[in-house]
């Protein structure tokens, strides 16, 4: 239950970096002011985690801004476009539940990464709670919100299998991770009167694709936007 390699730090760092970027796209577009604050808050936490993890590997900006799309190791789940608010909440529920359990294991496992995981797990607990509360409100709100929430959950379901593929250097019990995740997500969805999706959970290529640098098409455009300014001024400091 430790994290030992650059590959591991890169995979988890990229997850946080990419999801933070997606949440940053919400700024100025949220349904209520309180959500402007909350989504930015979560994005900032994730960006903080990304910076710590990427810095374990090398220069955070070189890694964020100068790698090609094929060199990113994030899950395909986190790169999915925001969609409507329910779609974003579904992505947050799936990912924050995973991250909470993962960091919980890493924090308990000792090793060099444990203090970082212990700090992150507190933030992620808040993210998970935020996603859960909104899943309940949207699932058990109006007919429209229920339909949208179910649609978001269903659309993202196929990207969830990837979270439980082994990652080099992340020594966790993936079986326990997957069982815990299913149990937690199922319990929230039951309380929200929503259905656990069925169908394959193999992502756009195969489970584990994002970790191998195989991404979905919207990701390339996201990376282009993220990197263009940095790349336009080689060697500049900001």
């Amino acid at each position: 239950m430790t994290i030992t390699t650059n590959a591991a730090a890169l995979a988890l760092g990229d997850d946080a970096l990419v999801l933070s970027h997606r949440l940053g796209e919400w700024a100025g577009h949220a349904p209520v002011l309180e959500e402007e604050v909350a989504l930015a808050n979560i994005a900032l936490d994730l960006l903080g985690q990304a910076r710590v993890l990427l810095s374990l590997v090398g220069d955070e900006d070189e890694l964020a801004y100068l790698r090609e799309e094929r060199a990113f190791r994030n899950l395909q789940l986190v790169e999915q476009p925001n969609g409507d608010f329910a779609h974003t909440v579904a992505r947050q529920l799936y990912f924050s539940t995973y991250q909470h359990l993962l960091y919980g294991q890493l924090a308990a496992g000792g090793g060099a990464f444990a203090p970082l995981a212990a700090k992150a797990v507190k933030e992620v607990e808040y993210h998970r709670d935020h996603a859960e509360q909104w899943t309940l409100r949207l699932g058990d709100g109006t007919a429209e919100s229920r339909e949208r929430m179910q649609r978001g959950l269903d659309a993202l379901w196929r990207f969830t299998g990837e979270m439980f593929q082994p990652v080099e250097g992340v020594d966790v019990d993936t079986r326990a991770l997957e069982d815990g995740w299913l149990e937690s997500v199922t319990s929230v969805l039951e309380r929200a009167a929503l259905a656990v999706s069925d169908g394959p959970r193999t992502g756009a290529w195969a489970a584990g694709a994002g970790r191998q640098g195989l991404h979905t098409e919207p990701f390339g455009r996201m990376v282009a936007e993220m990197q263009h300014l940095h790349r336009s001024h080689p060697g500049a400091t900001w």
Partner: protein
Amino acid sequence: MATVAADHTTYEAAFDAAVAADERIEPRDWMPDAYRASLVRQMAQHAHSEIIGMQPEANWITRAPSLRRKAILMAKVQDEAGHGLYLYSAAETLGTGREELLDKLHSGRQKYSSIFNYPTLTWADVGAIGWLVDGAAITNQVPLCRCSYGPYARAMVRICKEESFHQRQGYELLLALSKGTPAQHAMAQDAVDRWWWPSLMMFGPPDDESAHSEQSMAWKIKRHSNDELRQRFVDICVPQAEALGLTLPDPDLKWNEERGQHDFGAIDWTEFWDVLKGNGPCNEQRISQRRRAHEEGAWVREAAAAYAAKHAQKHGLKHGEATA
């Protein structure tokens, strides 16, 4: 009726005495209707400016050139949403509601600061906004910390602390660019050239054309005139621009030994009134985005309300008590 009239006079005298003694007016105190209306107008416009002001900066969140800058910018835009929340809450103490105020913003019946109708065309604009726009806002807002209306004054104390932090960050961003590559320096200069005059316009029309100034000063909502604050801002900015290694785009700008202040060139008031009337570069875009976010978020707010109502009922409360 005679008693009411007598009471009214007594109340008004008590109000005037409190203002004269620099005491704070609180939500439950009697206040003239016009004072209330003037405060609602100003605080609402202030809150709207925070909310609309998120847009030009959020425009660069996804393109910020380093992770450190990205984190700073995200935190700043988040702070602005928070400032909007404080200010709407403060305005609500005067008997209005956030929904009503947002509705007035969306329908164009209430305004926001004209500065946010200018576009952010390069990364350096983020720095220019921090240095100049936040700088002008602080110059305007620090005296509001002593405003006669308590909830507004207290909101401003909190807001000014964060604003001055943003301003320093903007300055530091521009300094990094100015001392960077020639292309970065040029980017910084171009941004300052475009934001300087609009920033001076943030202090409002000249004193002889300012509709609300005199009354606001009598009520101690405002403490200084528009022109006075504008002058103060220019005097602060000149040495800062020098330290930045950037120039200000005004050939008439020079130190006046006699006045002990800077003389500066004439502001293009035609442009100011044009932007205020809705004809600036981004007026349409800013208000459309705000309306769209609100309209597209309607189903989310309805869901939250329906959920709250259902769960209040489950706990044996009547509908309507849920949010009480």
